[in-house]
C-alpha cells in the first residue's frame, strides 16, 4: 500500500474543496469542544458536590443512641411466641461511648480504617449580654479533622491553627455570630445544661452554607468540650470513621454495630440520593456529548458522500489506470480521518479555551466560602477520549461513502457519460 500517494490524493481532494472540508471539520470541532467543556465542567461540579458532601460526612458515624432494648425481659422466656409489650420506654443511658479510647485504638489498627476521629458533642447555651441561644458545640481534634476532611474550607475569618493552639477558643457558627453581633476576637460565654458557664475566645467563624446548622453549631477543641462538660478525657460521645474504600461502609457499619452495641450510620444510608444525582449528571453529560458528535458524524458522512459523486470521474480514472478498490477506499477513509484529526485537535483547543474561561468566571456561593470561580476538572484523559472519539466517529462516517467509492464500477461511470 502506497500511503504517501493515497494521502496526497486525499489531501488534494480536501484542499480543492476547502469550504466543505472546513465545514465538516468545524462540525467535529464543535462536537469535541463542547464535549470537553461539558465533561470538564460537569465533573468539576460533581467533584465539588462530592467534596461538599463526602468530605464533610464521615463514612461511618459511631455513637450511642438512646433507644429501647430490642429484647425485653419477656422475650427471654421460652415459648414467648405471641407477646406484645406496649408503652416500652428506653432507659436513661450515658451518652458517652463506653471505653472509647480503647475502641479508638482498636479501630486505628483496622486495615480498612483510614482514620477514626473522636468527637464530643455538648448541648449549650450561647450567652452574649442579655441574649441566650441554644446550640451545640462539637469538640474535635482539629488537626486530624483538617487532614481527613475539608474542614478548613468552611472556616471564614480565622485559621484552624488558631483553634488548635489557643486554649479556651471557639470557632463560632456564622449564623450565631451574626445574630449576636459578634466577630473574631470577641469573647462569648457558653452555659452547659448543668449550669456551668465558660468564657471562650472567638478565633474564627464557621460557615457550612446550611443556615440551620450555622445558627446552632460551633467547634472547639476536644479538650475544651470535655472541660465544658466537666468530664475527663475518657468522655467521647461519637467516633467518625473514614475508610480507605467508601463502598465497604455499609458492611463495616453493620459489623461495628453488632460488635460494640453502638449505633453506626454509614454514608451510603445517610446520603442515598447523592449517588443517584452524580450518576444522572454523568449520564446527561455523556448523552449530550454523544449527540453532538453524532450530528458532526452525519455532517461528515454527508459531505463525503457529496464529494464522492463530485469525484466520480477521478475514481473512474484511478481505477482504469490500475488503482484497486481498496486504494480508492483508503483515499476516502483517509479524508474522513484527516477531517476528524484536524477538527478534533481544534475541538480540544476550543474545549480547553472554553473550560479555562469558565474556570475564571466568578462563582459566589455561600455553601462553599473558599470557592470563588466555577469548578472545572481539567483531566488529560478527557482530551484523549475526545480525540479518540473524533477519530472513531469520522472513521465510521467515512466508512460507508468510502466503501461506495471503492465499489464503483469504472466502466459504469465512463459509459454513463
Amino acid at each position: 500500500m502506497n500511503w504517501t500517494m493515497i494521502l496526497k490524493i486525499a489531501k488534494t481532494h480536501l484542499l480543492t474543496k476547502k469550504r466543505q472540508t472546513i465545514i465538516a471539520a468545524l462540525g467535529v470541532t464543535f462536537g469535541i469542544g463542547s464535549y470537553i467543556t461539558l465533561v470538564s465542567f460537569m465533573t468539576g461540579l460533581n467533584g465539588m458536590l462530592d467534596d461538599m458532601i463526602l468530605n464533610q460526612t464521615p463514612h461511618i458515624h459511631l455513637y450511642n443512641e438512646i433507644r429501647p432494648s430490642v429484647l425485653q425481659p419477656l422475650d427471654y422466656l421460652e415459648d414467648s411466641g405471641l407477646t406484645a409489650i406496649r408503652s416500652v420506654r428506653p432507659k436513661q443511658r450515658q451518652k458517652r461511648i463506653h471505653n472509647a479510647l480503647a475502641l479508638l485504638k482498636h479501630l486505628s489498627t483496622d486495615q480498612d480504617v483510614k482514620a477514626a476521629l473522636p468527637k464530643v458533642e455538648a448541648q449549650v447555651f450561647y450567652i452574649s449580654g442579655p441574649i441566650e441561644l441554644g446550640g451545640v458545640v462539637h469538640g474535635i481534634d482539629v488537626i486530624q479533622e483538617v487532614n481527613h476532611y475539608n474542614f478548613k474550607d468552611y472556616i471564614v475569618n480565622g485559621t484552624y491553627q488558631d483553634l488548635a493552639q489557643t486554649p479556651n477558643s471557639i470557632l463560632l457558627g456564622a449564623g450565631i455570630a451574626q445574630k449576636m453581633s459578634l466577630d473574631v476576637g470577641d469573647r462569648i460565654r457558653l452555659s452547659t445544661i448543668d449550669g456551668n458557664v465558660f468564657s471562650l475566645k472567638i478565633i474564627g467563624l464557621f460557615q457550612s452554607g446550611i443556615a440551620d446548622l450555622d445558627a446552632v453549631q460551633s467547634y472547639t477543641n476536644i479538650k475544651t468540650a470535655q472541660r465544658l462538660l466537666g468530664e475527663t478525657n475518657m468522655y467521647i460521645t461519637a467516633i467518625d470513621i473514614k475508610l480507605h474504600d467508601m463502598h465497604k461502609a455499609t458492611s463495616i457499619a453493620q459489623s461495628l454495630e453488632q460488635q460494640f452495641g453502638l449505633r453506626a450510620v454509614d454514608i451510603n444510608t445517610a446520603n442515598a440520593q447523592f449517588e443517584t444525582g452524580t450518576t444522572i449528571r454523568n449520564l446527561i453529560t455523556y448523552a449530550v456529548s454523544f449527540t453532538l458528535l453524532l450530528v458532526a458524524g452525519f455532517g461528515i458522512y454527508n459531505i463525503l458522500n457529496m464529494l464522492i459523486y463530485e469525484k466520480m470521474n477521478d475514481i473512474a480514472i484511478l481505477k482504469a489506470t490500475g488503482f484497486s478498490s481498496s486504494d480508492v477506499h483508503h483515499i476516502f477513509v483517509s479524508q474522513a480521518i484527516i477531517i476528524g484529526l484536524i477538527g478534533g485537535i481544534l475541538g480540544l483547543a476550543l474545549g480547553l479555551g472554553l473550560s479555562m474561561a469558565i474556570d475564571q468566571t466568578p462563582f459566589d456561593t455561600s455553601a462553599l466560602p473558599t470557592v470563588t470561580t466555577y469548578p472545572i476538572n481539567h483531566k488529560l484523559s478527557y482530551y484523549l477520549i475526545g480525540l479518540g472519539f473524533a477519530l472513531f466517529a469520522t472513521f465510521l462516517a467515512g466508512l460507508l461513502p468510502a466503501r461506495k467509492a471503492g465499489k464503483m464500477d469504472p466502466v459504469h461511470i465512463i459509459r454513463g457519460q
Partner: protein
Amino acid sequence: MNTSTVLRANNINKHFYTPEPFHVLKDVNLTVGKGEFTTVMGKSGCGKSTLLYILSTMDTQYNGELYIHDQLVTGKTANELAYIRNKHIGFVFQFHYLLSDFSVLENVMLPAQKLAQRSPTAIKAAALEKLAMLDIDTLAYKKAANLSGGEKQRVAIARALINDPAIIMGDEPTGNLDSHNASNVFDIFKRLSVENGLSLLIVTHDKDFATKTDRIIQMKDGRIVSN
C-alpha cells in the same frame, strides 16, 4: 504480421440483463500483435466499446478467455487485474482525461507511483520525458483543469505511457477533439506504433482516423464481420 501477440481473446460472449436480456457480444475472437495499430469500428450499439472494456480487464462479467502476453487473465482477482491494468495497459478516453485538481505532472506520475517499481525521482524524470516526447513539457506544472481539450488528451496519452505498457487502448480518443487536434493525436499514436513498437487498440467512429491505421476490425451486432 507479428509473431508475438500482446492480446488474445477467445470466444468472448457477453450478455446484458438489464433492462432486458441482450446478447451483446457473440463469439468474439481477436488477437493484437506487438506493434500493431488496430482500430475497431462499427455503429453505435454494436458492442465495440463493451468489447474494449472487457479487453481492458475492467469488465469481468463475460464468458470466454482473455490472454495478455499469453497469460490467462480471465478469472483473476480484482486486485490482480488492477495490477495488470496498471502495468500493461494504458488508457485514453473520450471524456475522462485527467484528475482536474492535480497538476499535469502529478497526473502523469500517478500510475507509476501506484506501481511503485521506481524511485520518486526516476518517476518524475520519466514523466517529464514522456511530456517532452509529446511536446507538452512546458505544461508540466499547470493544473490539469486549466488545459485545453487537445492538451488534456495529450497529457492523458503521456499518462497512459508512463509505465511503458504493452498496449494502449482508446475509447474514441479523438471523438471530442477538432480535426486539427484529432490528427495530432493520430500522429502521436502512429509514431508510438512505428518508433516504439507499441500496440494500439482504438475504438473509433472516425473513418479518416481508421483508414490510416494498420488494421480495421469491423463489428456489427456483436460480431466481428471483417478483420
